[in-house]
């Protein structure tokens, strides 16, 4: 580089000239960096509280340092196995049925011949995505109560003897939750698949037709392999979020009597950290969740790389 052979004074003056040209940009960057420190770095540093026995209002001194006691405490809690089970079951349902459903819907959308009809159905399918979980919970509560539409219809069809208040029965929580999640998100989740399908070269299909592929054959040998990279990418991203599933609905629809079925790690962290005031313990539980999520992303990524040659990063 030229800078090396030049004298020190030149380097300095060039640096100064460069800084002079950029000084306004530097000035504004200070605000961005300040925001980054305040709203990202400090809370990130806050996870170290999980190694202490933090008491609000008292300084955090080294004699409060308790190593991994807060982490170990979680596994001694009576609810721990249930919380882990619920998180894995709900996350697992989301990553299986909840993951496949939008792919199937996208393929069905793609088979529609009328563009206008397709457009209308797609737009309608986005509707639930735009409303809040509070609205969804309120509608579910109305439909699933003992005087609700579902009970009425099932009783009048003779499928049930008497009305049931579904939300008060613990075992119904998982099917209700996964149905609601799919209903809310399925249309929206098709968008990325639809744009992947739109990007497939039309000539592939023409060549396929020459080779005698039928409609199902085209889906199987052309469409699905072409959108596989998108599927893998979304799967890897989904795996990273598997432990973050559904705290909103759970907090809105979960009742104290059905807690054994809906308490997941996120609601547990909220309950202990905010409502019961055990901050260090709650931070430890949340930290474990994040670290496991991060590890799972890396593992899925390398597995996907090995078996399919596809990866996120």
């Amino acid at each position, binding site marked *: 580089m030229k800078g090396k052979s030049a004298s020190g004074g030149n380097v300095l003056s060039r640096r100064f000239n460069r800084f002079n040209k*950029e000084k*306004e*940009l530097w000035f*504004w*960057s200070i605000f*961005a960096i300040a*925001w*980054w420190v*305040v*709203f*990202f770095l*400090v*809370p*990130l540093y*806050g*996870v170290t*509280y999980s190694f202490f026995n933090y008491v609000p209002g008292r300084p955090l001194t080294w004699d409060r340092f308790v190593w991994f006691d807060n982490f170990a405490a979680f596994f001694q809690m009576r609810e721990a196995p249930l919380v882990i089970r619920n998180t894995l079951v709900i996350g697992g349902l989301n990553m299986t049925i909840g993951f496949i459903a939008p792919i199937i*819907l996208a393929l*069905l959308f793609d*088979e529609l*011949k009328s563009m206008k009809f397709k457009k*209308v*159905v797609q*737009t*309608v*399918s*986005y*509707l639930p995505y*735009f*409303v*809040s979980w*509070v*609205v969804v*919970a*309120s*509608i579910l*509560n109305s*439909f699933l109560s003992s*005087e609700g*539409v579902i009970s009425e219809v099932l009783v009048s069809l003779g499928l049930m003897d008497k009305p049931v208040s579904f939300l008060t029965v613990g075992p119904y929580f998982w099917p209700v939750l996964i149905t609601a999640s799919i*209903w809310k998100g399925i*249309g929206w989740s098709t*968008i990325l698949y639809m*744009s992947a399908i739109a990007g497939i070269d039309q000539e592939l*299909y*023409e060549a396929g*037709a020459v080779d005698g*592929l*039928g*409609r199902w054959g*085209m889906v199987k040998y052309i469409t699905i392999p072409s959108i596989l990279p998108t599927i893998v990418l979304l799967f890897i991203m989904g795996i990273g979020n598997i432990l973050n599933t559904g705290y909103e609905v759970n*907090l*809105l629809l979960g009742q104290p009597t059905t807690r054994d079925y809906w308490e997941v790690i996120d609601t547990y*962290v909220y309950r202990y*950290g*905010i409502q019961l005031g055990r*901050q260090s313990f*709650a*931070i430890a539980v949340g930290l474990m969740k*994040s670290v496991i999520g991060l590890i799972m992303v890396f593992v899925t990524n390398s597995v996907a790389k090995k078996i399919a040659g596809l990866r996120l990063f």
Partner: protein
Amino acid sequence: MVRQDLVKKTASGKVFDVFNVVLMIILSFFFIYPFWQQLVMSLNDGIDAQRGNLYFWPRVFTLNNYDYIFKTKGMLDALFWSLARVIVGTVTQLVCTGFLAYLTSVKFFTLHAWLRKMFVLTMYIGGGMIPVYLWFQQLGLLESFTVYWLPGVLSAYGMMIIGAYMDGLSDSIAESARIDGAREVTIYFRVVAPMCKPVFAALAVMTAVGHWNSWFDVMLYNASGSYDTLQMLLRDILIESNKLAELMKDSTAGSDAVKGQAARITTQTMRAATTMVVTVPIVCVYPFFQKYFVKGISIGAVKG
């Protein structure tokens, strides 16, 4: 040419087409009907609604439910805070995040790539709920309106989609403005931002809907209820049975006419009406804005 026409028409193909169209109509019904049922419920007399079997059309039509909920003080306050956070939150985020994206897209700037990396990092890791809560408590952000918009003024996701758009623009105009001695702020507001209208529109819609729909931060940071939004009000009516009694009490102090009105209203119809107040703005707006959303997530996915 439509792809399906490449293939010879078969009987099973036709059966599938019919099946597919029927399935789509059924699915559309399931996407729309829950909202329709709530609308019917909200337009029906409360006492009558308790008889059940209210499916497609109001039996005893009334606007009482709406009339009544808009007379309660909680509702108007909640509407105010909802609108305030949508407007303030969206405007501040667009201006600030747009400027951040601009800083990261000025190629000669030493920090441009670093800034981008720093903010991308915030999408993947973070302190989590409790550290953020404790820190906000120390900062005095709890029980304030500020907590709704300040933590969101810079969004990494917004930076990525605006940044991607700005990278696609030619920088010759910005460069010539710079040679003419224009300040960076001027270049951003006068030259670059106006060229980015489509992507700003996309982000604006996403941010506004996000603000309108969010409730958990209200519950978490403003637990006292002084800054309750519409979503939070609906959540309270849903979960805390005493909230409804409280709202009912507001009006029993009023005239006899209002008391008579309150007597015909039930939790069920009142909740349905509140659900509609929260939902209708979204339903009216989303078909026009969904294309911006679609664009936004496609850009985000390519870059992410």
